[in-house]
């Protein structure tokens, strides 16, 4: 597989955005070298213990493809009931479709544009943000992304800028004439006191398999608020690997929610560094998987300074032969006193062949902290089911109600108005599909 990506790199070299920038060309070369050294991660790596990328190796990805499926503006889905005011970017197979996008009116101090344009306009500003290769623990997929980074988006808010409307980024995959692998690179910089809501929506339109290996870097300045929500409803033959690295400043808040219903194999790897006093992060998520799906949510939260808070709740529903992985690491560094860290993983196993592997981990080097984690797994509560059935509700319906309630609890936490109904609807569709199969 490493060879395949090296071939892609050779073939695409001259077509990458910003290929005329010497520092970027050099950075890509270093990224490829680091990836060649490590190769695709295997379960031998502790952080990939439960997720094997072997299914990816079986697909013969092409470097480029010609879009076959036709998309018109009303086919690009939106999660918001009224998206006339929101700022929309639509990517098809990793390429920006300007005709489908709608940047809208941005307030002064706000910048939202594709990475390629930012590279053309102000490359020096990007240089410091894109080079993340110094890390000795560099994740292999990030190295690959750095080498092959294609178009993504840049959201930059200057001091005190508040975006009144959400930014919605839509990714559509599988439209090409061959299986494609692409590596979007996104950058979100919120300066002091600014606020934004970012919604990412992954979906599909063609039949082809695809691999999306994205990297999103977020820097949230002092007192700023970033709400980052994502629905991953990729095709069931797709592979979705997403890395998010967020740096949260003094009194800033990062509120994240990731919902997974799609992809044959997906992994959301989020690492958050709380490095200003009073920084807060919420890392929440929900997933519904069935068939032979594999869904991995891996988070690492570093509490670097005193008085930081983290709350993390992941809830999942696993059916058929699907498998889910939850790995959460909460690290309290020396001197990070008064840390408040809580982590919870709750799972419903709906079939005899479903599997959950959870590894909630605490690593603590400061004494005046309150940290906890919890994990549960099991079937639906039989008493609750009996209660509903005793009142004449058929079993399938009763089960669906309980599952909806189980996941709905965490969806209610989302601050973006208008998004919750769309997520509840996707849960409803999922449950309806499950019942149809039965």
């Amino acid at each position, binding site marked *: 597989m490493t060879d395949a990506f090296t071939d892609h790199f050779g073939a695409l070299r001259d077509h990458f955005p910003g290929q005329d920038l010497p520092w970027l060309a050099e950075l890509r070369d270093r990224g490829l070298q680091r990836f060649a050294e490590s190769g695709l991660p295997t379960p031998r790596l*502790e952080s990939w213990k439960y997720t094997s990328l072997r299914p990816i190796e079986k697909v013969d990805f092409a470097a480029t493809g010609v879009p076959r499926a036709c998309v018109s503006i009303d086919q690009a889905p939106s999660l918001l009931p009224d998206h006339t005011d929101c700022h929309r970017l639509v990517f098809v197979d990793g390429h920006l479709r300007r005709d489908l996008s709608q940047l809208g009116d941005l307030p002064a101090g706000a910048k939202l544009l594709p990475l390629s344009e930012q590279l053309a306009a102000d490359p020096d500003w990007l240089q410091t943000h894109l080079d993340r290769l110094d890390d000795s623990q560099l994740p292999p997929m990030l190295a690959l992304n750095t080498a092959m980074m294609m178009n993504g988006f840049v959201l930059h808010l200057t001091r005190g800028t508040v975006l009144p409307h959400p930014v919605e980024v839509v990714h559509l995959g599988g439209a090409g004439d061959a299986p494609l692998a692409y590596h979007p690179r996104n950058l979100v910089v919120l300066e002091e006191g600014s606020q934004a809501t970012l919604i990412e929506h992954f979906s599909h339109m063609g039949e082809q398999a695809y691999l999306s290996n994205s990297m999103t870097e977020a820097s949230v300045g002092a007192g700023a608020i970033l709400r980052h929500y994502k629905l991953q409803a990729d095709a069931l033959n797709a592979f979705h690997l997403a890395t998010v690295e967020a740096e949260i400043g003094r009194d800033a808040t990062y509120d994240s929610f990731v919902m997974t219903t799609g992809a044959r194999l997906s992994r959301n790897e989020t690492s958050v560094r709380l490095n200003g006093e009073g920084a807060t992060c919420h890392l929440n998520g929900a997933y519904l998987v069935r068939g032979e799906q594999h869904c991995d949510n891996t988070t690492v939260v570093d509490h670097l300074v005193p008085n930081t808070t983290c709350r993390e709740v992941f809830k999942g529903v696993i059916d058929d032969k699907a498998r889910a992985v939850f790995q959460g690491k909460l690290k309290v560094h*020396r*001197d990070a*006193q008064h840390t408040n860290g809580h982590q919870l993983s709750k*799972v419903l*196993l*709906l*079939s*005899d*062949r*479903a*599997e*959950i*592997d*959870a*590894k*909630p*981990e*605490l*690593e*603590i*080097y*400061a*004494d*005046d*902290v*309150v*940290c*906890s*984690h*919890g*994990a*549960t*797994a*099991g*079937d639906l509560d039989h008493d609750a089911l009996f209660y509903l059935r005793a009142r004449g509700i058929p079993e399938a319906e009763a089960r669906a109600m309980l599952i909806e309630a189980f996941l709905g609890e965490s969806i209610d936490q989302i601050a973006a108005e208008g998004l919750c109904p769309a997520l509840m609807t996707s849960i409803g569709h999922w449950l309806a599909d499950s019942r149809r199969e039965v």
Partner: protein
Amino acid sequence: MAVTVETVEQVQALDKYKYGFVTEIETDTAPKGLGEDIVRFISAKKNEPQWLLDWRLKAYRHWLTMPEPEWAKVQFPPIDYQDAYYYSAPKSPDDAPKSLDEVDPKLLETYEKLGIPLREQEKLAGVAVDAVFDSVSVATTFKKNLEEVGVIFCSISEAVQKHPELVRKYMGSVVPYGDNKHSCLNSAVFTDGSFVYIPKGVRCPMELSTYFRINAENTGQFERTLIIADEGSYVSYLEGCTAPMRDEHQLHAAVVELIALDDAEIKYSTVQNWYPGDEDGKGGIYNFVTKRGACRGRNSKISWTQVETGSAITWKYPSCILQGDNSVGEFYSIAITNNRQQADTGTKMIHLGKNTRSRIIAKGISAGRSDSTYRGLVRISAKAEGARNFTQCDSLLIGDRCGAHTVPYIESKNRNAILEHEATTSRISEDQLFYCRQRGIPEEDAVALVVNGFCREVLQQLPMEFAVEAQKLVGISLEGSVG
């Protein structure tokens, strides 16, 4: 309260490690280093049958090919396996002593300093003691009483001679020789240990106990313990350790195998107090132990209770394989680390049978510059219908230079299984300390009191005599961590 007062007295009387002394006894020692000839030497010394020698050699050859395990959160310089002695036995004229009177008086003195006068225990506590001094058992008591009910309690070398069929059938059946690097080394060079067989339907009339003690300098001690509880039997086994003070690191790689057949129950309790090294982390024991129990039969039960206060490095995961339907596994643990100690300990509960249940209560206390890690696995296999697990790991931090970590792995493949895991980390509540101090209890005393309360759930699981000792240990181990 009485215990707390005693703890303070002990702490005050304690300038150095209480059990830090070396008894000078002539030893019959194998040459330094490790090789096939040493394995043959040990086997010959013990007059072992060919199959056991073959097994040892197979283990030794496999050991050479195995890498050092590096996943645990402990740090230490690489071990020079050639720089240690693998066999030393206290020299006695002719054979082992026939009765306590024949035991080397210096040995008896050692036990007295340790606070385990054999004779007193014989009479008062009703405990049979199989004392392992270095590597060979020198005194086994209460044998007669046990023989009457058919319980076999002897050293493993004796069992090899007298009950080879049992040893051959069960040894290595729970911990295979190639299980991990440390257990593999043990399989090659184990010198002695205890063997227990409880026949069908017998409830062992007394608690069985072994006191271990590392004595000769530079002797790695490799015990091997094998306990078999046949159908419907019950046994409670106590293990306690103290070690004399010395500078060089000592390797201790023991293997304990438990087998519980239908309706049998084994309760295994440990108080581990090996020399932890001095305040700067110099010296101390490397305690790399493989302990595993198999609940082979229906309705069988294995319960591990451990109080880990000693050793420079503890690497220990007493586990249960729950094969039989309705079998139960339990793990109760207190791990206390101070100064520069490192402990990576926990358990594995492998649920294979239907309606198997497991319960894990782990309490970690870190002070000074130490690191303590709970690492545990709960695995529910697809066939373990109705399995149930409850896990609770709590960590307490004393001081801002120590670390407490929790690394649980939870794997479930059965919808009808219910798993719950909880973990918390906190420090001693200022309110509780203030409350105690306001009532005139000195700070160090108050800490011991609060910590004993924190560990209560686990201490309650220990047999009476052990519980008292363990409570004292909790206080002593935290000496110097306050103020």
